[in-house]
Protein backbone atom coordinates (compact mmCIF):
# COMPACT_ATOMS: atom_id res chain seq x y z
CA UNK A 1 0.00 0.00 0.00
CA UNK A 2 1.34 3.43 -0.93
CA UNK A 3 1.30 5.64 2.15
CA UNK A 4 0.20 9.27 1.95
CA UNK A 5 2.76 12.08 1.74
CA UNK A 6 3.07 15.04 4.13
CA UNK A 7 0.78 17.24 2.04
CA UNK A 8 -2.05 14.69 2.21
CA UNK A 9 -2.27 13.68 5.88
CA UNK A 10 -4.10 15.85 8.46
CA UNK A 11 -1.73 18.22 10.27
CA UNK A 12 -0.40 17.62 13.76
CA UNK A 13 -0.93 13.85 13.78
CA UNK A 14 -4.69 14.31 14.00
CA UNK A 15 -6.84 11.26 13.26
CA UNK A 16 -9.88 12.87 11.66
CA UNK A 17 -12.36 10.01 12.09
CA UNK A 18 -13.35 7.39 14.61
CA UNK A 19 -12.86 3.62 14.42
CA UNK A 20 -9.69 3.80 12.35
CA UNK A 21 -7.93 1.20 14.52
CA UNK A 22 -9.80 -1.41 12.44
CA UNK A 23 -7.60 -0.46 9.50
CA UNK A 24 -4.41 -0.89 11.48
CA UNK A 25 -3.46 -4.54 11.27
CA UNK A 26 -1.47 -5.63 14.31
CA UNK A 27 -1.56 -9.38 13.61
CA UNK A 28 1.98 -9.23 12.32
CA UNK A 29 3.26 -8.51 15.84
CA UNK A 30 2.40 -12.08 16.89
CA UNK A 31 4.96 -14.69 17.96
CA UNK A 32 2.40 -17.14 19.37
CA UNK A 33 -0.96 -17.77 17.78
CA UNK A 34 -4.08 -18.90 19.70
CA UNK A 35 -5.89 -22.00 18.46
CA UNK A 36 -9.20 -23.19 19.92
CA UNK A 37 -10.47 -26.76 20.30
CA UNK A 38 -14.20 -26.16 19.84
CA UNK A 39 -15.06 -29.69 21.01
CA UNK A 40 -14.01 -28.63 24.53
CA UNK A 41 -15.22 -24.98 24.43
CA UNK A 42 -18.19 -24.21 26.74
CA UNK A 43 -18.83 -20.74 25.21
CA UNK A 44 -18.46 -18.98 28.55
CA UNK A 45 -16.96 -16.02 26.57
CA UNK A 46 -14.34 -15.28 29.24
CA UNK A 47 -11.85 -14.97 26.35
CA UNK A 48 -14.11 -12.39 24.66
CA UNK A 49 -14.38 -10.37 27.89
CA UNK A 50 -10.63 -10.35 28.54
CA UNK A 51 -9.18 -9.96 25.03
CA UNK A 52 -7.52 -6.50 25.02
CA UNK A 53 -7.78 -6.26 21.22
CA UNK A 54 -11.42 -7.33 20.72
CA UNK A 55 -10.05 -10.14 18.58
CA UNK A 56 -12.36 -12.95 19.74
CA UNK A 57 -15.05 -13.55 17.14
CA UNK A 58 -18.49 -14.29 18.56
CA UNK A 59 -21.74 -15.07 16.76
CA UNK A 60 -25.12 -15.77 18.39
CA UNK A 61 -23.49 -16.05 21.80
CA UNK A 62 -20.94 -18.62 20.62
CA UNK A 63 -17.18 -18.27 20.43
CA UNK A 64 -16.22 -18.84 16.80
CA UNK A 65 -12.51 -18.13 16.55
CA UNK A 66 -10.00 -15.28 16.31
CA UNK A 67 -9.55 -12.09 14.27
CA UNK A 68 -5.96 -12.80 13.26
CA UNK A 69 -5.62 -9.35 11.65
CA UNK A 70 -5.71 -7.79 15.13
CA UNK A 71 -4.76 -10.56 17.59
CA UNK A 72 -1.27 -9.77 18.90
CA UNK A 73 -0.83 -13.22 20.46
CA UNK A 74 -0.72 -12.02 24.07
CA UNK A 75 -2.15 -15.33 25.33
CA UNK A 76 -4.64 -13.85 27.80
CA UNK A 77 -7.46 -15.90 26.23
CA UNK A 78 -5.50 -19.13 26.74
CA UNK A 79 -4.66 -18.19 30.33
CA UNK A 80 -8.22 -17.23 31.27
CA UNK A 81 -10.00 -20.18 29.58
CA UNK A 82 -11.53 -22.29 32.39
CA UNK A 83 -11.52 -25.50 30.32
CA UNK A 84 -8.10 -24.90 28.77
CA UNK A 85 -9.36 -25.31 25.21
CA UNK A 86 -7.16 -22.50 23.80
CA UNK A 87 -3.53 -23.34 23.08
CA UNK A 88 -0.79 -20.91 22.03
CA UNK A 89 1.17 -22.27 19.07
CA UNK A 90 4.43 -20.85 17.68
CA UNK A 91 3.80 -18.80 14.53
CA UNK A 92 5.37 -20.34 11.47
Amino acid at each position, binding site marked *: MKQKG*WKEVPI*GGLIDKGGSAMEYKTGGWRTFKPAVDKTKCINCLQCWIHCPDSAIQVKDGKMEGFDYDHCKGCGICAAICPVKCIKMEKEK
Partner: protein
Amino acid sequence: MKKNTVAITGNQAVAEAMRQIEPDVVAAYPITPQTDIVMNFSQFVADGKVSTEMINVESEHSAMSACVGSAASGARTMTATSANGLALMWEIVYIAASLRLPIVMPVVNRALSGPINIHCDHSDTMGARDSGWIQIFCENAQEAYERTIMAIRIAEHKDIMLPVMINQDGFITSHSVEAVQIFEDKKVKDYVGEYKLDHSLLNLDKPVTYGPLDLQDFYFEHKRQQAEGMANALKLIPDIMADFNKEFESNHDILETYKLDDAEVAVVVLSSTAGTAKTVVDDLRSKGIKAGLLRPILFRPFPTERIAKELAHVKVIGVMDRSESFSAMGGPLFNEVRSALYDSAEKPIAVNYIFGLGGRDIFPEDIKKIFDELLAINKTKKVASRISYVGVRE
Protein backbone atom coordinates in the same frame (compact mmCIF):
# COMPACT_ATOMS: atom_id res chain seq x y z
CA MET B 1 -9.67 55.92 14.87
CA LYS B 2 -10.45 56.35 18.55
CA LYS B 3 -7.68 55.34 20.92
CA ASN B 4 -7.76 55.84 24.65
CA THR B 5 -4.41 56.85 26.14
CA VAL B 6 -3.76 55.40 29.60
CA ALA B 7 -0.76 55.17 31.92
CA ILE B 8 -0.19 51.44 32.51
CA THR B 9 2.61 48.88 32.76
CA GLY B 10 3.55 46.35 30.11
CA ASN B 11 1.83 43.63 32.11
CA GLN B 12 -1.34 45.68 32.49
CA ALA B 13 -1.28 46.41 28.76
CA VAL B 14 -1.15 42.68 27.98
CA ALA B 15 -3.93 41.95 30.50
CA GLU B 16 -5.97 44.67 28.79
CA ALA B 17 -5.38 43.01 25.40
CA MET B 18 -6.53 39.70 26.90
CA ARG B 19 -9.66 41.36 28.30
CA GLN B 20 -10.50 42.69 24.85
CA ILE B 21 -9.72 39.40 23.10
CA GLU B 22 -11.82 37.63 25.75
CA PRO B 23 -10.48 34.14 25.05
CA ASP B 24 -12.72 31.18 25.85
CA VAL B 25 -10.15 29.71 28.23
CA VAL B 26 -7.15 30.99 30.17
CA ALA B 27 -5.17 28.40 32.15
CA ALA B 28 -2.26 30.00 33.96
CA TYR B 29 -0.01 29.91 36.97
CA PRO B 30 1.59 33.03 38.45
CA ILE B 31 5.34 33.58 38.21
CA THR B 32 7.42 36.74 38.59
CA PRO B 33 7.53 38.98 36.56
CA GLN B 34 4.49 37.72 34.62
CA THR B 35 2.30 37.55 37.74
CA ASP B 36 0.22 40.66 37.28
CA ILE B 37 -0.86 39.68 33.77
CA VAL B 38 -2.64 36.71 35.34
CA MET B 39 -3.59 38.70 38.44
CA ASN B 40 -5.19 41.52 36.43
CA PHE B 41 -6.92 39.11 34.10
CA SER B 42 -8.29 37.09 37.05
CA GLN B 43 -9.77 40.33 38.34
CA PHE B 44 -11.54 40.88 35.01
CA VAL B 45 -12.97 37.36 35.30
CA ALA B 46 -14.02 37.91 38.94
CA ASP B 47 -15.64 41.24 38.05
CA GLY B 48 -17.61 39.65 35.23
CA LYS B 49 -15.92 41.82 32.60
CA VAL B 50 -15.08 38.74 30.53
CA SER B 51 -16.84 35.39 30.16
CA THR B 52 -13.53 33.51 29.98
CA GLU B 53 -13.20 30.20 31.80
CA MET B 54 -10.21 30.84 34.08
CA ILE B 55 -8.47 27.63 35.12
CA ASN B 56 -6.21 28.00 38.14
CA VAL B 57 -3.79 25.12 37.92
CA GLU B 58 -1.14 23.78 40.27
CA SER B 59 1.86 24.26 37.98
CA GLU B 60 2.89 25.50 34.55
CA HIS B 61 3.10 21.91 33.30
CA SER B 62 -0.60 21.70 34.09
CA ALA B 63 -1.26 25.17 32.67
CA MET B 64 0.06 24.24 29.25
CA SER B 65 -1.57 20.80 29.44
CA ALA B 66 -4.95 22.42 30.11
CA CYS B 67 -4.28 24.83 27.23
CA VAL B 68 -3.61 21.91 24.87
CA GLY B 69 -6.87 20.19 25.80
CA SER B 70 -8.77 23.43 25.60
CA ALA B 71 -7.36 24.50 22.23
CA ALA B 72 -8.00 21.03 20.78
CA SER B 73 -11.60 21.27 21.89
CA GLY B 74 -12.00 24.40 19.79
CA ALA B 75 -11.75 27.03 22.53
CA ARG B 76 -9.61 30.13 21.94
CA THR B 77 -6.93 29.64 24.57
CA MET B 78 -4.31 31.82 26.22
CA THR B 79 -1.83 31.60 29.05
CA ALA B 80 1.21 33.64 30.16
CA THR B 81 4.50 32.79 31.81
CA SER B 82 8.14 33.64 32.53
CA ALA B 83 11.47 31.86 32.90
CA ASN B 84 11.18 28.81 35.19
CA GLY B 85 7.46 28.64 34.50
CA LEU B 86 8.22 28.23 30.82
CA ALA B 87 10.84 25.65 31.72
CA LEU B 88 8.32 23.66 33.76
CA MET B 89 5.94 23.71 30.76
CA TRP B 90 8.68 22.43 28.48
CA GLU B 91 7.30 19.05 27.50
CA ILE B 92 3.88 20.46 26.68
CA VAL B 93 5.28 23.56 24.95
CA TYR B 94 6.61 21.25 22.25
CA ILE B 95 3.38 19.24 22.18
CA ALA B 96 1.26 22.39 21.69
CA ALA B 97 3.29 23.30 18.61
CA SER B 98 3.44 19.73 17.31
CA LEU B 99 -0.34 19.31 17.58
CA ARG B 100 -0.66 22.64 15.71
CA LEU B 101 -2.73 24.35 18.39
CA PRO B 102 -2.95 28.14 18.07
CA ILE B 103 -2.38 29.03 21.73
CA VAL B 104 -1.21 32.61 22.40
CA MET B 105 1.19 33.08 25.31
CA PRO B 106 2.64 36.41 26.43
CA VAL B 107 6.07 35.71 27.95
CA VAL B 108 7.72 38.21 30.25
CA ASN B 109 11.40 37.54 29.70
CA ARG B 110 13.35 36.66 32.81
CA ALA B 111 16.66 34.93 33.49
CA LEU B 112 16.33 31.19 33.76
CA SER B 113 17.71 29.67 36.97
CA GLY B 114 20.22 28.95 38.29
CA PRO B 115 21.40 30.65 40.29
CA ILE B 116 17.87 31.86 40.85
CA ASN B 117 17.19 35.34 39.55
CA ILE B 118 13.94 37.11 38.73
CA HIS B 119 15.19 39.88 36.42
CA CYS B 120 15.33 40.34 32.70
CA ASP B 121 17.27 38.42 30.16
CA HIS B 122 16.21 36.31 27.21
CA SER B 123 17.49 32.92 28.33
CA ASP B 124 13.95 31.63 28.94
CA THR B 125 12.47 32.05 25.46
CA MET B 126 15.80 31.58 23.69
CA GLY B 127 15.82 28.08 25.12
CA ALA B 128 12.45 27.52 23.48
CA ARG B 129 13.56 28.83 20.09
CA ASP B 130 13.40 25.35 18.56
CA SER B 131 10.10 24.39 20.20
CA GLY B 132 8.04 25.24 17.12
CA TRP B 133 6.42 28.36 18.58
CA ILE B 134 6.35 31.64 16.73
CA GLN B 135 8.34 34.18 18.78
CA ILE B 136 7.84 37.93 18.59
CA PHE B 137 9.88 40.37 20.70
CA CYS B 138 8.51 43.75 21.82
CA GLU B 139 10.35 46.93 22.75
CA ASN B 140 7.65 48.52 24.89
CA ALA B 141 4.19 48.14 26.40
CA GLN B 142 2.41 49.48 23.31
CA GLU B 143 3.98 46.82 21.11
CA ALA B 144 3.23 44.08 23.64
CA TYR B 145 -0.41 45.20 23.77
CA GLU B 146 -0.92 45.39 20.02
CA ARG B 147 1.00 42.23 19.18
CA THR B 148 -0.91 40.19 21.76
CA ILE B 149 -4.06 41.08 19.80
CA MET B 150 -2.36 40.47 16.45
CA ALA B 151 -1.02 37.10 17.65
CA ILE B 152 -4.54 35.66 17.62
CA ARG B 153 -4.76 36.19 13.86
CA ILE B 154 -1.25 34.84 13.30
CA ALA B 155 -1.74 31.69 15.39
CA GLU B 156 -5.17 30.84 13.97
CA HIS B 157 -4.37 31.49 10.30
CA LYS B 158 -5.32 28.26 8.55
CA ASP B 159 -1.98 28.03 6.75
CA ILE B 160 -0.02 28.62 9.98
CA MET B 161 -1.84 26.97 12.93
CA LEU B 162 1.05 27.42 15.36
CA PRO B 163 1.22 28.79 18.90
CA VAL B 164 2.71 32.24 19.46
CA MET B 165 4.88 33.75 22.22
CA ILE B 166 4.74 37.53 22.63
CA ASN B 167 7.86 38.55 24.54
CA GLN B 168 8.46 41.67 26.57
CA ASP B 169 11.37 42.46 28.90
CA GLY B 170 10.81 41.51 32.52
CA PHE B 171 10.45 44.48 34.89
CA ILE B 172 11.96 46.92 32.35
CA THR B 173 8.80 46.76 30.24
CA SER B 174 6.47 44.62 32.35
CA HIS B 175 6.60 46.86 35.44
CA SER B 176 7.32 50.32 34.03
CA VAL B 177 4.40 52.65 33.51
CA GLU B 178 4.11 54.03 30.00
CA ALA B 179 1.48 55.91 28.03
CA VAL B 180 -0.33 53.18 26.12
CA GLN B 181 -3.01 53.74 23.52
CA ILE B 182 -5.86 51.28 23.95
CA PHE B 183 -8.21 50.46 21.08
CA GLU B 184 -11.97 50.32 21.41
CA ASP B 185 -13.24 46.97 22.71
CA LYS B 186 -15.54 46.42 19.77
CA LYS B 187 -12.79 47.08 17.26
CA VAL B 188 -10.60 44.39 18.88
CA LYS B 189 -13.50 41.92 19.12
CA ASP B 190 -14.31 42.43 15.43
CA TYR B 191 -10.64 42.00 14.52
CA VAL B 192 -10.12 38.71 16.37
CA GLY B 193 -13.53 37.34 15.36
CA GLU B 194 -14.56 33.88 16.48
CA TYR B 195 -12.23 30.90 16.67
CA LYS B 196 -13.56 28.02 14.63
CA LEU B 197 -11.61 24.78 14.68
CA ASP B 198 -12.27 22.27 11.91
CA HIS B 199 -11.68 19.25 14.12
CA SER B 200 -12.96 19.81 17.63
CA LEU B 201 -12.25 17.19 20.24
CA LEU B 202 -15.74 17.82 21.64
CA ASN B 203 -17.64 17.30 18.40
CA LEU B 204 -19.31 13.96 19.08
CA ASP B 205 -20.83 13.83 15.60
CA LYS B 206 -17.38 13.76 14.07
CA PRO B 207 -15.02 12.13 16.56
CA VAL B 208 -11.29 12.82 16.20
CA THR B 209 -8.11 11.83 18.01
CA TYR B 210 -5.41 14.32 19.02
CA GLY B 211 -1.92 13.19 19.93
CA PRO B 212 -1.89 9.47 19.01
CA LEU B 213 1.34 7.50 18.89
CA ASP B 214 3.18 8.53 15.73
CA LEU B 215 6.07 6.25 14.85
CA GLN B 216 8.53 5.71 12.02
CA ASP B 217 5.78 5.66 9.40
CA PHE B 218 4.25 9.14 9.92
CA TYR B 219 6.14 11.25 12.52
CA PHE B 220 8.52 12.58 9.85
CA GLU B 221 5.59 13.67 7.64
CA HIS B 222 4.08 15.59 10.55
CA LYS B 223 7.40 17.32 11.28
CA ARG B 224 7.69 18.25 7.60
CA GLN B 225 4.21 19.80 7.82
CA GLN B 226 5.26 21.71 10.94
CA ALA B 227 8.30 23.11 9.12
CA GLU B 228 5.97 24.18 6.31
CA GLY B 229 3.69 25.91 8.83
CA MET B 230 6.68 27.93 10.06
CA ALA B 231 7.73 28.74 6.47
CA ASN B 232 4.16 29.88 5.79
CA ALA B 233 4.29 32.04 8.91
CA LEU B 234 7.38 33.79 7.53
CA LYS B 235 5.50 34.55 4.33
CA LEU B 236 2.19 35.51 5.95
CA ILE B 237 3.16 37.49 9.07
CA PRO B 238 4.18 40.61 7.06
CA ASP B 239 0.71 40.56 5.45
CA ILE B 240 -1.02 40.06 8.81
CA MET B 241 1.01 42.97 10.21
CA ALA B 242 0.15 45.18 7.22
CA ASP B 243 -3.51 44.34 7.65
CA PHE B 244 -3.30 45.17 11.37
CA ASN B 245 -1.59 48.48 10.58
CA LYS B 246 -4.46 49.41 8.27
CA GLU B 247 -7.11 48.31 10.74
CA PHE B 248 -5.60 50.05 13.79
CA GLU B 249 -3.51 52.84 12.23
CA SER B 250 -0.32 51.32 13.52
CA ASN B 251 3.17 50.59 12.25
CA HIS B 252 4.32 46.99 12.74
CA ASP B 253 6.99 45.19 10.77
CA ILE B 254 8.98 41.99 11.25
CA LEU B 255 12.00 44.13 12.14
CA GLU B 256 12.88 47.75 12.78
CA THR B 257 15.75 49.60 11.20
CA TYR B 258 16.98 52.85 12.71
CA LYS B 259 19.24 55.14 10.68
CA LEU B 260 20.59 52.03 9.02
CA ASP B 261 20.37 53.00 5.32
CA ASP B 262 23.79 54.65 5.13
CA ALA B 263 25.24 53.22 8.36
CA GLU B 264 28.83 51.99 8.44
CA VAL B 265 28.56 50.48 11.91
CA ALA B 266 25.42 49.11 13.53
CA VAL B 267 24.18 47.16 16.51
CA VAL B 268 21.59 44.41 16.28
CA VAL B 269 19.55 44.12 19.47
CA LEU B 270 16.17 42.83 20.66
CA SER B 271 13.45 44.41 22.78
CA SER B 272 13.80 47.27 25.27
CA THR B 273 17.57 47.72 24.94
CA ALA B 274 16.94 48.96 21.39
CA GLY B 275 15.33 52.05 22.94
CA THR B 276 18.54 52.87 24.81
CA ALA B 277 20.67 52.04 21.77
CA LYS B 278 18.69 54.41 19.54
CA THR B 279 19.60 57.36 21.78
CA VAL B 280 23.26 56.35 21.41
CA VAL B 281 22.83 56.19 17.62
CA ASP B 282 21.32 59.71 17.70
CA ASP B 283 24.23 60.94 19.77
CA LEU B 284 26.80 59.44 17.38
CA ARG B 285 24.94 60.78 14.34
CA SER B 286 25.08 64.29 15.83
CA LYS B 287 28.87 63.88 15.77
CA GLY B 288 28.81 62.83 12.13
CA ILE B 289 29.36 59.12 12.78
CA LYS B 290 27.36 56.84 10.53
CA ALA B 291 25.85 54.61 13.21
CA GLY B 292 22.66 52.59 12.87
CA LEU B 293 20.55 49.90 14.47
CA LEU B 294 18.56 46.86 13.51
CA ARG B 295 16.00 45.41 15.91
CA PRO B 296 14.66 41.98 14.99
CA ILE B 297 11.01 41.67 16.06
CA LEU B 298 10.09 38.33 14.55
CA PHE B 299 12.63 35.83 15.86
CA ARG B 300 10.82 32.57 15.03
CA PRO B 301 10.47 32.15 12.13
CA PHE B 302 13.73 34.01 11.53
CA PRO B 303 13.56 36.51 8.64
CA THR B 304 16.94 35.54 7.19
CA GLU B 305 16.68 37.18 3.77
CA ARG B 306 15.30 40.47 5.03
CA ILE B 307 17.97 40.75 7.74
CA ALA B 308 20.74 39.94 5.27
CA LYS B 309 19.40 42.56 2.88
CA GLU B 310 19.17 45.26 5.55
CA LEU B 311 22.69 44.59 6.88
CA ALA B 312 24.62 43.77 3.68
CA HIS B 313 26.01 47.29 3.21
CA VAL B 314 27.12 47.80 6.83
CA LYS B 315 30.87 47.45 7.43
CA VAL B 316 30.83 46.18 11.02
CA ILE B 317 27.94 44.96 13.14
CA GLY B 318 27.81 44.23 16.85
CA VAL B 319 25.10 41.72 17.68
CA MET B 320 23.93 42.17 21.26
CA ASP B 321 22.64 39.04 22.97
CA ARG B 322 20.77 39.17 26.26
CA SER B 323 21.41 35.48 26.79
CA GLU B 324 24.32 33.05 26.68
CA SER B 325 23.88 29.79 24.81
CA PHE B 326 27.01 28.17 26.26
CA SER B 327 28.07 26.98 22.84
CA ALA B 328 31.44 28.76 23.02
CA MET B 329 30.38 30.38 19.73
CA GLY B 330 28.28 33.30 20.93
CA GLY B 331 24.66 34.00 21.77
CA PRO B 332 21.62 32.82 19.80
CA LEU B 333 20.91 36.12 18.05
CA PHE B 334 24.54 36.39 16.95
CA ASN B 335 24.49 32.93 15.41
CA GLU B 336 21.23 33.52 13.55
CA VAL B 337 22.31 36.92 12.23
CA ARG B 338 25.75 35.70 11.20
CA SER B 339 24.23 32.69 9.47
CA ALA B 340 21.78 34.99 7.65
CA LEU B 341 24.72 36.94 6.22
CA TYR B 342 26.56 33.88 4.89
CA ASP B 343 24.91 34.00 1.47
CA SER B 344 25.48 37.73 0.96
CA ALA B 345 28.16 38.66 -1.55
CA GLU B 346 29.02 41.69 0.54
CA LYS B 347 28.80 41.21 4.26
CA PRO B 348 29.75 43.03 7.42
CA ILE B 349 32.28 41.87 9.96
CA ALA B 350 30.16 40.55 12.81
CA VAL B 351 31.04 40.50 16.48
CA ASN B 352 28.99 39.47 19.49
CA TYR B 353 28.31 41.24 22.78
CA ILE B 354 26.66 39.32 25.60
CA PHE B 355 25.04 41.78 28.01
CA GLY B 356 22.44 42.27 30.71
CA LEU B 357 22.28 38.73 32.07
CA GLY B 358 20.07 38.40 35.14
CA GLY B 359 18.85 41.97 34.72
CA ARG B 360 22.31 43.62 34.85
CA ASP B 361 21.70 47.20 33.70
CA ILE B 362 22.93 48.28 30.29
CA PHE B 363 23.75 51.97 30.05
CA PRO B 364 24.15 54.30 27.05
CA GLU B 365 27.88 54.43 27.89
CA ASP B 366 28.11 50.64 27.50
CA ILE B 367 26.52 50.81 24.06
CA LYS B 368 28.72 53.80 23.16
CA LYS B 369 31.75 51.62 24.00
CA ILE B 370 30.41 48.90 21.71
CA PHE B 371 30.12 51.41 18.88
CA ASP B 372 33.67 52.64 19.59
CA GLU B 373 34.90 49.07 19.19
CA LEU B 374 32.92 48.61 15.96
CA LEU B 375 34.47 51.82 14.60
CA ALA B 376 37.96 50.61 15.57
CA ILE B 377 37.35 47.26 13.84
CA ASN B 378 36.16 49.14 10.75
CA LYS B 379 39.41 51.09 10.70
CA THR B 380 41.79 48.17 11.27
CA LYS B 381 39.64 45.31 9.85
CA LYS B 382 40.95 43.29 12.75
CA VAL B 383 38.78 41.54 15.34
CA ALA B 384 40.51 41.14 18.68
CA SER B 385 37.62 39.30 20.30
CA ARG B 386 34.68 37.76 18.42
CA ILE B 387 32.63 37.38 21.60
CA SER B 388 32.73 39.96 24.40
CA TYR B 389 30.87 40.35 27.67
CA VAL B 390 29.55 43.85 28.39
CA GLY B 391 28.99 45.03 31.94
CA VAL B 392 30.47 42.03 33.72
CA ARG B 393 33.14 42.61 36.39
CA GLU B 394 36.58 41.29 35.40
